[in-house]
C-alpha cells in the first residue's frame, strides 16, 4: 500500500493521512493509491502539513507497517526512550521497528 506521511506545521509532530485528516497514529493510515501527490499538494497548500511524502507500507494483523525502518521509528518514537513513544506503557514497543 502507498501511505502518506508528513509533519504538523505548528508542532512538527509526525502525522499520517487517514483518508480525511492527519493522524499521529500510523495504524490510521489509508492506502492512497495513485492520489498521493494530489493530496500532498492540497494539504501543504492549506498548511495542514509540511514536508509530506509517499512511502510504501503494508497492512497486517497488527496494523499498518511502513516498509522502511526509518518510517517505523518515525511512527513509534525513539526506541531508546520508550516513555517518549506513542506506546509508553510497552517497554518492548521498540522491537516492532526492527
Amino acid at each position, binding site marked *: 500500500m502507498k501511505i502518506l506521511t508528513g*509533519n504538523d*506545521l*505548528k*508542532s*512538527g*509532530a*509526525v502525522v499520517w493521512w487517514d483518508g480525511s485528516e492527519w493522524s499521529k497514529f500510523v495504524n490510521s493510515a489509508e492506502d492512497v493509491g495513485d492520489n498521493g501527490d494530489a493530496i500532498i499538494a492540497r494539504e*501543504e497548500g492549506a*498548511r495542514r502539513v*509540511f*514536508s509530506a511524502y509517499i512511502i510504501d507500507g503494508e497492512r497486517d494483523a497488527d496494523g499498518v507497517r511502513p*516498509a*522502511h*525502518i*526509518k518510517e517505523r*521509528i*518515525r511512527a513509534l*518514537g*525513539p*526506541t*531508546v*526512550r520508550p516513555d*517518549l513513544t506513542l506506546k509508553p506503557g510497552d517497554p518492548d514497543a521498540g522491537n516492532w521497528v526492527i
Partner: protein
Amino acid sequence: MYKYDQYDQQMVDTRVAEFRDQVRRRIDGHLTEDQFRPLRLQNGLYLQLHAYMLRVAIPYGTLNSQQMTMLGDIADKYDRGYGHFTTRQNIQYNWIKLEETPDLLADLASVEMHAIQTSGNCIRNISSDQFAGAAADELVDPRPYAELLRQWSSFHPEFLTLPRKFKFAVIASETDRAAMKLHDIGIKMVRNAAGEVGAQFYVGGGMGRTPMIAPMIREFVPLDQLITYSEACLRVYNRYGRRDNKYKARIKILVHELGAQEYTRQVEEEFAHLLDQGIEPPIAELERIKEHFADPAFEADAPDDLDLSDPDFRLWAQRNCHAHKQPGYISATVSLKPVGGIPGDASADQIRLMAQLAKQYSFDELRVTHVQNIVFPHVRKADLYEVWKTLDDAGLGTANLDTVGDIIACPGLDYCSLANARSIPLAQKISERFGSAEKQSELGELKLKISGCINACGHHHAGHIGILGVDRKGVENYQLLLGGSEGADTSLGQITGPGFDEDGIVDAVDKATKVYLANKHGEERFLDTYRRIGMAPFKEALYD
C-alpha cells in the same frame, strides 16, 4: 567569560524579533516551506525524525550557571524535560514546537545565548579545549582568540553562503583535546623563536564521507594578523570551493584537489592583498576581549592534597579529573555516560544541578566537551569530594572518562533524519557489556565512537574503535574501524572488513579488545597496540 556589549545584545534581540515575524508569516501562509526553510535553519531550527529540533550555540563550550540553568528550564518549558549535548559543544532539543520557538529564542537571548549559525553553509560554532583557561599544560587561554573569531564570523556577509558549512577549532596546548586537525580550520596557539604568541594554521581537515587530516599551511601568524589570515583562507575557499557537488564542497576537498602547497600559495597571495585593506580589528579589541577571560580569584594557599580514602571517590577523582594550572584546584569532568545511558543526554534537573554546583564550586563556570560531557573547570580540591557526592546522588558520578564507557554517539536513527542506523542502542549495549569498573580498568584508555551515517557526527573515523552504521537493504548494519585518534597523534581509523548486525558488532568489539589484551606490552593503550601489531591479528579474530 565573555559578556555581551550593547551591540551583541541588540543584534541577538533584533534577530529574535525578525524570526518571530518570519514564524508568524509562515503560520499564516505568507511564506511557503521552501521560503521558510532557510530562514528557520539560519536560526538553528531543523526538522528531524520526530519533530523540529533546535540546536543552541555554546561558544567554545563555555557557559555560566545562569545560562546552564536556562538550558535546563528550556528543557522543561519547551521540550520534554531533557537536552542533548553534542560533539560541537552545543546542546540540542528534540521536541520543539514552531510556534513556541520565538519565545524560546527570547529566553535564550535574555542570558546572552542564541541559535544563530548552528546550521547552514556558514561558519559554525567555534570549538575549543574544554580545559581552556584552567589546564596546567596550556600555553595561553585559547578562548579570547576563539571569541575574536566568533565576533568576526558572526553575520559576516561574505561567508554566510559558503559552498558548505565551515568549522573552526582553537587550542593552545600540545595535547589536542578538540580534534583540531579534523576541522576545516584548526588553529593552535604557539610561541615563536622570539617568544611571541601567534597562531599555527591547519586547513582542510574533516570527517564525513571523505575524512582528512588537515595539513599545516602556516607555522606562525602574528596575533595582529589572525583575522586577516583567516579571511584569506575563507576567501580562497569561497571562490573555488566545489559548489557543483554537495559531497565535494567542503574545504578539505579543495585543499586536497589543489594540493596543500598550491592552496597555501593562493592563501598567501590573498593574504598579501588583504593586509593592505585594513580589515584586522585593532589589537586593543583583542585585549578588551582578553579581559573577559581573566583568571577567577583563586585562593593562593588553597590546600593541594586530596583525601582519597573513599574508594569510589578515588576512582572518580583519578579518572575524571584533570590537572589545573593553579595549585589547590582541579578540573572535574561530569560524565554524561552512565552505564546503559544515552551519551550526552541530561535531564532538566541534572542540568540545573550542574549549574548550581558550578556557581557554588567552580567560579560560576561550566564547559561542554566535544565528547559530550560537562566540565567544572575550577574546583578547589578541598571541595571536590562534596561535588562528587552531590553528582553521584544525582546519577552523574560515573567514573569512566576516556574509557570504553565514555562513548561518543550521534543521535542516530532514533532522532536524526539523515541517519541510516541507530547509534544509541549500540552505545548502551557496549557500555553495559564493558561498563564495570574492573573491565574499564583492564582496558584502560579506549575511545569508542559511533556514527549512524557517513556524515560522522559521532566521530567514528577518530575512535580507537569506531563504528559506522549503514543501511543494508533496509536493515541496520555496522562497520567496525580501528586505529583512529583525534588527539595530538591524529589518525583515521581503518575498516576491518564486512559489517555486523546489532548484536554482532558488540561481539566484534569484545573480540577486538581481547586481541588487544592478548598482545599489549606494558602500559600500552589499545591504540598503541593496534599501531604496533597492525590490522591483521584483529581481522583474524573477527572473521576467521
